[in-house]
């Protein structure tokens, strides 16, 4: 009886990893502010692992954890290819340390949007082609609702209300009016596009580049699609 009440099992999860390229808290904060502002709901309570392999010993682990929690992430552990002493030091201070396999670190499981680099321009963009399947939603996405197509394109047969949020790692198609927020290429995919029958969005974002309503003037109220040329958002009319 007592034996069955709990059970430990190993399971692998894909976690977002924040790669620190600096130990300067002000720089980290500045970067987080801009990143989180682009998709606040998307990052809310996201479990996060912090990779510190590029930082020397002078890092204030507690301060990093506090900073991250301040942005409503759920701090999980530190990680990185570091020596035994540093690992021991981290654990001594009461933080978890998780080992990553070599394969993972080289591939960067990190969501590109969350990859922290000091120079904004250097944000890693994935260039490989994405062959995503479609997640299809029938009906309107209402204010306060959020839908995320993880590693998929998102097709909405209906409108997206103001105050609603649609997110996809691939493309977003709205067969209706887009009045809320649409975030395509959420994991770093610069070829992602957003299509809608009526462009009246509060925000559109592709691969971390975003526009607020006022930037959509040119095709406001029209059938349009949004895409990236170099790293500039562009809207074009959908005929």
């Amino acid at each position, binding site marked *: 009886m007592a034996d069955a009440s709990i059970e430990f099992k190993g399971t692998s999860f894909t976690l977002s990893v924040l790669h620190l390229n600096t130990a300067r808290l002000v720089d980290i904060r500045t970067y987080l502010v801009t990143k989180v502002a682009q998709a606040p709901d998307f990052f809310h309570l996201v479990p996060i692992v912090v990779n510190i392999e590029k930082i020397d010993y002078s890092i204030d682990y507690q301060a990093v954890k506090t900073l991250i929690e301040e942005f409503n992430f759920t701090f999980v552990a530190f990680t990185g290819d570091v020596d035994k002493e540093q690992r021991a030091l981290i654990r001594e201070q009461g933080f978890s340390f998780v080992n990553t396999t070599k394969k993972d670190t080289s591939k960067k499981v990190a969501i590109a949007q969350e990859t922290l680099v000091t120079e904004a321009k250097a944000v890693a963009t994935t260039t490989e082609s994405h062959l995503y399947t479609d997640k299809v939603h029938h009906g*309107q996405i*209402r*204010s*306060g609702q959020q839908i995320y197509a993880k590693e998929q394109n998102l097709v909405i047969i*209906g409108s997206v*209300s103001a105050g*609603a949020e649609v997110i996809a790692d691939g493309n977003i198609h709205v067969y209706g009016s887009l009045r809320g927020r649409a975030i395509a290429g959420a994991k770093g995919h610069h070829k992602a596009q957003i299509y809608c029958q009526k462009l009246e969005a509060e925000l559109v974002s592709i691969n971390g580049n975003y526009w607020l309503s006022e930037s959509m003037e040119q095709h406001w109220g029209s059938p349009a699609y949004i895409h990236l040329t170099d790293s500039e958002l562009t809207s074009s009319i959908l005929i």
Partner: protein
Amino acid sequence: MARIIVVTSGKGGVGKTTSSAAIGLGLALKGHKVVLIDFDIGLRNLDLIMGCERRVVYDFVNVINGESTLNQALIKDKRVSSLSILPASQTRDKDALTKENVGKVLEELGGLYDFIVCDSPAGIEAGAMMALYYADEAIVTTNPEVSSVRDSDRILGMLASRSRRAELGLEPIKEHLLLTRYSPKRVEEGEMLSVDDVKDILSIPLLGVIPESQAVLKASNAGEPVILDTESDAGKAYQDVVDRLLGETIEFRFLVAEKKGIFSRMFGG
């Protein structure tokens, strides 16, 4: 089984209680057995609008707590015998309502009535969720202004995700749009959203448009639901709503500002 209809909105003061009273009484006048439930625990408004506030002895929370039977708490309407009212409690004990005990009361009422009309409190918290949870149909009451439309949109999201029908994967709640306090003149002047604007944003079927009307305030003060004022625009519009709920196809009226007749124009009337 009874049709359970919630009158809901998100925003307060848009006309939910006014509409619940008018529609409930209207359905009863058509010969249906109707019970009106006030879910606005702590405020207790419906009994005033219905003019039965002095006859409240026991209330919804008493029934829930087993302090009275349903029969003791139900108030029979003096005008129409097929209409009863289950008043809200004036105590602030909002947490008394749970899915389980509300479900039991609705089940008992469902065997006795054709329509259960639930007057929802404002907001999107527990009280409003409780009022909509068991609904088969929802009358989404909206004023023609942006914040009210936005709140209605939120409630529509809740209806589609947080109701019993959504949780069990049953046929979704049937949604009706009721536009209240509509002033065609102010729409024409660009101060208010038009019927078409609201329909476009919410994209649910239109059940009725109730004009802004002095008759409503008069009716509330008298404790006589405005549908009884058969001369008033608002009374007529609510009658249309009742007929549509009963399956009739009726043209919408009171959508355009009344053009002044030649005499009043000449004499500035």
